[in-house]
């Protein structure tokens, strides 16, 4: 079970990112728990400088803009 967090205050790009993560996990047949983090303090403390950010099992892998689909699958598989 992968713990995935999507950091963002709730703008459209953050929603899209969360959906991309869910889609990629479904495509890979991975069991992933996708949580959206909207609290600015928590976002900042995770080390995210620009949203949306993605962390997988506690490790930040992406920050700023929509993730690249291929890279996203790579992070999820790792």
């Amino acid at each position, binding site marked *: 079970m992968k713990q995935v967090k999507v*950091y*963002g*205050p*709730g*703008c459209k790009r*953050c929603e899209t990112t969360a959906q991309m993560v869910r889609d990629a996990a479904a495509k890979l047949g991975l069991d992933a728990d996708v949580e959206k983090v909207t609290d*600015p*303090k928590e*976002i*900042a*403390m*995770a*080390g*995210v*400088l*620009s*949203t949306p*950010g993605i962390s997988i099992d506690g490790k*930040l*892998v*992406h*920050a*700023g*803009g*929509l993730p*690249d689909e291929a*890279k996203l699958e790579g992070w999820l598989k790792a």
Partner: protein
Amino acid sequence: MLDDISTAGDRGSLLTRAGKPGPAMLIVATVIGLALWWTVYSWLIPFSEAVTSLFPVERHSHTGEAIAFFFYDVPKVLMLLTLIVFAMGVIRSWFSPEKTRALLAGKREGVGNVLSACLGILTPFCSCSAVPLFIGFVSAGVPLGVTFSFLIAAPMVNEVALILLVGLVGWNVALTYLFFGLGVAIVAGWVIGKLKLEGWLQDWVRDIHSGANAPADFSGETLTMSDRYKLGYEAVREILSKVWVWIILGIGLGALIHGYVPENLMVDIMGADAWWSVPVAVVMGVPLYTNAAGVIPIVEALLGKGAALGTVLAFMMSVIALSMPEMLILRQVLTLRLIAVFIAVVSCGILAVGFLFNAIF
């Protein structure tokens, strides 16, 4: 129909087989893209004349002029935006917020403010990231005033504002806006730094600032050239989908005003002799919230009808730099007192620009 499907399929398999395009392919694509762009751009005048001639109006009447103006300006501005936003999207991929922070960390005030305001133009920034960015900067040892220079410059001086100014008003006004927008960001940030207001941050931010509670470290991803091109493409898609309505509305409004509103309508209200017009413009700009695309057609209309340049620049800076939604976002990290100082200092800077321009020109 069948043909369409089979070619689409071929293209799909070609792409998967080739994988990511290599550097040579990107260079070829860039050259072809630029050549196409230039060809289309150079046909815009004949295009607008051809469209205008389809309307049952006299070409040199007010209506004819307005139609020709509209069908020349809309595609022109959209094409300029596409090109520049793409280029900036690619260039920005080298200036991630993480790198900018590393460049600014520990910089002295003064030099730091100048560098910070300039990086504000180049670093990708969206106001929904203002809080994490603020925390990230402050926690890495970027001085408070230097952080403010960045936060003022990033939304105020951006390529969309500048391109629209070049396209609709003129490059001299665009350059003026660039220099004085940067000036306001540098000086306002420097002043806020000198006031030593670190104590007026929200408590949890102060803890981070003092190093008691550091956020996790993240240095960003590595990008290939084709990743960077993709970022450019995404920037174009995102920005154009947001601003095209404003551009059509704005240029439509501009076309109407060109033809129908008397030349000197604004001279009495917003001319250089009406000194009070500058503060009024700044105050009016705060509750008004729109992006650069929404405000520049208004700027064009005001300038065209006799409003003074300084007053109009002050209005534009106030609308973009001092906005209620951004204040609400910053409220999460700043106390009300600090927000009040921020608004006061930036307003003074904008007022100074307005008065200076009205006095000189």
